[in-house]
């Protein structure tokens, strides 16, 4: 009764053909990128050393390390997070706990999508017009970090909202029935259950923020400065801009030096993303509801 008919054999062959076809497309997309990353690792690996990470550029940026850029990126990201994380979490709490399904919420969602979709160079123009000139922060870490914070705000909002809505509604109802206010419920029940998901989003945000170049070019990051920043009103070097500078703006840079900078930048970003992904998978495995 269940003999393999000729049609079945034909179908299975076609099926295998399509599977192979789509596998090829996947591999054609992924393998070149992996080869490129491999090249970066091989060429950049020869440059990277403890000295490279912890000394300043010398000889008109054609030698030495990248410490000021690394240090500046830490500053920029830290200040940006101080702004975007509280704001993003507040926005996510509003959207997940208070907002109804109406036109107003739709407009907020649309604004979030747009904030993420506006070109990074337009964010840079905004940063110049608003923070550097209008609020008179000058080109400073503060202006650059504000620009970065606004640009990457959607990352925090989306990740936090997702982990808040994943907390079952019954948890909230149980808490309300005990006479708790909305905020008490959020603080004691919803947030503790969502905190690890929020953390995943924050790590992603760190990764996004540290790689951005265009938004900081005119708002606070400079090609070269011999001084490390002392306050948020100083200018600073940054990893992403440093890669642009050593690969396009400075004559006489040894061929391998920019590979080293690129490798450090990409390692920072990919390590943070991997941590975030691993954390998420661990949480999914642990989930009790």
């Amino acid at each position, binding site marked *: 009764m269940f003999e393999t008919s000729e049609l079945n054999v034909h179908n299975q062959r076609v099926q295998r053909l399509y599977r192979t076809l789509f596998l090829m*497309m996947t591999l054609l997309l992924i393998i070149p990128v992996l080869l490129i990353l491999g090249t970066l690792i091989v060429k950049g690996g020869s440059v990277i050393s403890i000295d490279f990470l912890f000394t300043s550029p010398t000889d008109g940026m054609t030698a030495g390390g990248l410490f000021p850029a690394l240090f500046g990126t830490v500053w920029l990201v830290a200040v940006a997070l101080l702004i975007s994380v509280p704001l993003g979490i*507040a926005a996510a709490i509003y959207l997940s706990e208070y907002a109804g399904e109406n036109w107003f919420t739709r407009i907020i*969602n649309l604004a979030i999508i*747009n904030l993420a979709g506006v070109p990074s160079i337009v964010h840079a*123009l905004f940063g110049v017009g608003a923070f550097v000139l209008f609020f008179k922060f000058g080109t400073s870490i503060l202006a650059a970090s504000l620009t970065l914070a*606004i640009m990457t705000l959607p990352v925090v909002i989306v990740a936090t909202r997702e982990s808040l809505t994943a907390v079952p509604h019954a948890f909230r109802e149980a808490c309300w029935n005990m006479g708790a206010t909305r905020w008490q419920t959020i603080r004691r029940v919803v947030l503790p259950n969502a905190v690890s998901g929020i953390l995943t989003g924050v790590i992603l945000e760190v990764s996004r923020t540290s790689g951005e170049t*265009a938004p900081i070019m005119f708002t606070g990051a400079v090609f070269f400065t011999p001084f490390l920043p002392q306050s948020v009103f100083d200018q600073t070097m940054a990893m992403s801009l440093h890669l642009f500078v050593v690969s396009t703006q400075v004559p006489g840079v040894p061929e391998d030096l920019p590979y080293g900078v690129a490798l450090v930048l990409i390692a920072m970003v990919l390590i943070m993303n991997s941590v975030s992904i691993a954390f998420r998978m661990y949480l999914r495995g642990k989930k009790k509801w």
Partner: protein
Amino acid sequence: MPGQQLTKTDDLSAAFDRRNADWYIDKLVQVLVFIGGISAIIFVIAIFAFVTKEGFGFILDRFDLQEFFTSPYWYPSDEDAPEYGILALIAGTASVTGLAMLVAIPFSLGTAVFIAEFASGKTREGLKVLVELLAAIPSVVWGFIGLSIMNPIIIDVFDVPVGLNVLNAGIILGLMAAPIMTSIAEDALKAVPDRYREAAEAMGATRWQVIYKTVLPAAKNGLLGAVLLGVGRGFGETMAVLMATGHSVNIPGSVFDSVRALTATIAAELGETAVGSDHYQVLFTIGIFLFLITFVINLTADLIVRGIRKG
């Protein structure tokens, strides 16, 4: 009678008034998170307002709609007769984005179909992680890859003098946009209910027939949304196209011509201009143009994707 009833309720509500400290904290938090909620709207409006404010002087005094959009001559720093035509810049952006989509659309949709419909278990999880990691590579690194890895390859393979051109930037931008498009497209395929697939399989359809006749048509809008967001991303990309296009003002005749993109022009020239000068203001005017285009693309993508959710 009705009057008496009202007084009674008032008494009651006074007796049961629980407005203690917690009640006020609750209201305060509600206001605070509401401010957070509307911050995204405020920022989008602020971006438009501030970019327009800086570029408005040019629109009022110097702006010539016809010259701006139809002249290929971009000589903003010419002292005697500066020219502000962005046609060549639009052509640069359009050619690079177009080629990027030619690369990215088939491969990202193909990868999404493979991940969502063919792969299973560890393969699927592994591929998803890989795609997510590829999407995280910063654009300045992609620009550097175009500059130092793609450039010599293109010179060798095609025997052309310069490897920084439409082809280089198109491939780079395509590789950049593909992972993002893949994950959005995969979400769209995952959103198709399993009962569609089960129904088709019950009718004796093979896996490919299920995908081609059932899943793809059902996910059509989501896939279109993924493509549109990819276009928006390509259009707004700055560092990668600044470094890989060759950055010369040109209406390209072939993929081996160097071009210059709208975004890259702002990035390269803003640092050299005096605040408030015509040149400075025209760069902000380009910014307004970019803002409006991406706004329309994102809005359209959102409307299309929401179309299926309702249906």
